[in-house]
């Protein structure tokens, strides 16, 4: 999503006098000190969290020796493992649907001019700028109303479940996928499609043989973002999951509200490791572009 440097900026920077980059000034020094402190601020808590997932201390706030016990306990905790499986299931399914819907929408918005395009644009960007809690209560009210309606019409009683969570996750992920895929469509050389068409490929073939492979990094980038958003989402998951269905962030929240435990430190460390893996993946996909 974020590129380190645009090519234009790179050439401009090369033109900048070399003197300026290496010059040591008071303001430059102040800036460096400031940046180092901010990086410390960003990473110290994370480092402490990881460290204290290996402590023997049963309260998880003191270093009393190394152990892997908490990780072992984690994997023996069926409730947490169940929640992890649920979370992955929700993330995979919602990512798949959101990626397909988002890619189609991005194609429509980037390639066609049509009436109501601005309205569609606004509708797509709204989920990004609306506070998540508003979306969560709206979906909660909607599902309650829909369930009442279904009971009235068919006599069937539905409850909030993983399905309602998946629907909610798709509703906000689609917008993020659209944003990422649109960027890669913008950087796309449309003459390649014209060339393929001139050489006799039909619309279907042009898409699958030319367009799709070229925007694939964008699609994967969007999918990775949707996957992360779903894994990390807590608010919509809290409001839309039913009493019997537990998701990992909700479980962690319920535990954390009570006290710090080394077990939570351990699960947090694992979630952190997963996030880092996903950023690395998404960055390397974008690099290839």
């Amino acid at each position, binding site marked *: 999503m*974020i590129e*380190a*440097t*645009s090519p234009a*900026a790179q050439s*401009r920077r090369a033109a*900048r006098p070399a003197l*300026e*980059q290496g010059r040591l000034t008071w303001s430059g020094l102040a*800036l460096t000190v*400031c*940046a180092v402190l*901010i990086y410390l*601020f*960003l990473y110290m*808590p*994370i480092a*402490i*969290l990881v460290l*204290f997932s290996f402590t023997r201390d049963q309260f998880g*706030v003191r270093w009393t020796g190394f152990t892997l016990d908490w990780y072992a306990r984690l994997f023996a905790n069926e409730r947490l493992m169940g929640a992890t499986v649920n979370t992955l299931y929700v993330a995979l399914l919602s990512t798949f649907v959101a990626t*397909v*819907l988002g890619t*189609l*929408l991005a194609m*429509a918005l980037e390639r*066609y001019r049509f009436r109501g395009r601005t309205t569609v644009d606004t*509708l*797509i960007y*709204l*989920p990004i*700028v*609306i*506070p*998540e*809690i*508003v979306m969560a*209560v*709206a*979906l*909660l*009210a*909607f599902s309650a109303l829909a369930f009442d309606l279904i009971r009235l019409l068919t006599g069937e009683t539905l409850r909030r479940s993983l399905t309602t969570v998946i629907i909610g996750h798709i*509703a906000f992920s*689609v917008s993020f996928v*659209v944003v990422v895929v649109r960027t890669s469509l913008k950087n796309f050389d449309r003459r390649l499609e014209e060339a393929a068409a001139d050489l006799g490929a039909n619309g279907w073939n042009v898409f699958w043989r030319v367009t799709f492979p070229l925007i694939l990094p964008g699609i994967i980038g969007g999918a990775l973002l949707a996957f992360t958003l779903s894994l*990390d989402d*807590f*608010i919509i998951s*809290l409001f839309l999951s039913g009493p019997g269905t537990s998701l990992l*962030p909700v479980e962690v929240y319920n535990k*954390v*509200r009570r006290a*710090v435990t080394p077990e939570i430190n351990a699960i*947090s460390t694992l*979630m*952190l490791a997963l*996030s*880092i893996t996903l950023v690395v993946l998404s*960055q390397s996909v974008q690099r290839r572009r």
Partner: protein
Amino acid sequence: MALNALERERQRRERRTLAALLTPGLLWLILFFALPLVIILVYSFMTNGPRGNIVWQFTFGNYIDLFTRSIYVNAYLRSIWISVLTTVICLLLGYPLALFIVRQPPRWRTVLLFLVLIPFWTNFLVRIYAWQIILANNGLINSLLNGLGLPPLALLNTEGATLLGLVYGELPFMVLPIYAALDRFDFTLMEAAADLGASKRRAFWRVMLPMTMPGVAAGSVLVFIPTIGQFVVSELLGGAKVDYLGNLIQRLFLRSNPPNWPLGSAMAMAMMLVLLILILIYFRVTTEEDR
């Protein structure tokens, strides 16, 4: 004639493709995003029944409660205040950091930017939780104080802890858009300003800051929006001692017995009103830059 028919056929096919591309995603967003928002807008004008059921009777009562009863007014003002504070502090930390990253040689820049991206992609809950370990009564800071023979401090469950957690959580969202704006900024303009006799400070205020304003505005919006709706940080680090809008909405929908969805919906709508004003300001700031 034949050409005309061919053109018509091509147009028809194009319209069909467009419809196929738009329909699934749009339907989803209308059904599961727009319609739910309309429902809570309607609910916000309805009456709450004795068992927390919706009574379909029109009332302004929820909004009147919201703007007259001190518990709600205070939550409203408190939420706006802490969101403004969080945004300003994130800006004061985020701008220098983004500037620092942009000024590094390319290889370093990638690494430093990556270090901002990691928290951006990391679970918010986990990052907030990390502060509990540090601030708790038996936590890291108090252990250190104890070791030095100093009395312990009550750090967790304070409003200061809430502010700290919010700044910590949202900082990456401020840095990334400012970085993007600074990356596009032509630094030779600063030299031009210096050549023309402007001091460094003046060049910053008159050239660099105005030209990177879209990034500042985008970052501020990205920080402000989640902050005004938050309830997790004030619960985990603030100890739920004082109520913010998010805490009240969550309670009215999920925890109260009986729940009060109409009032909760009205609060959500009132929150959207603040954001609407904010976004209008945002568009003013960014379009002025284009001129």
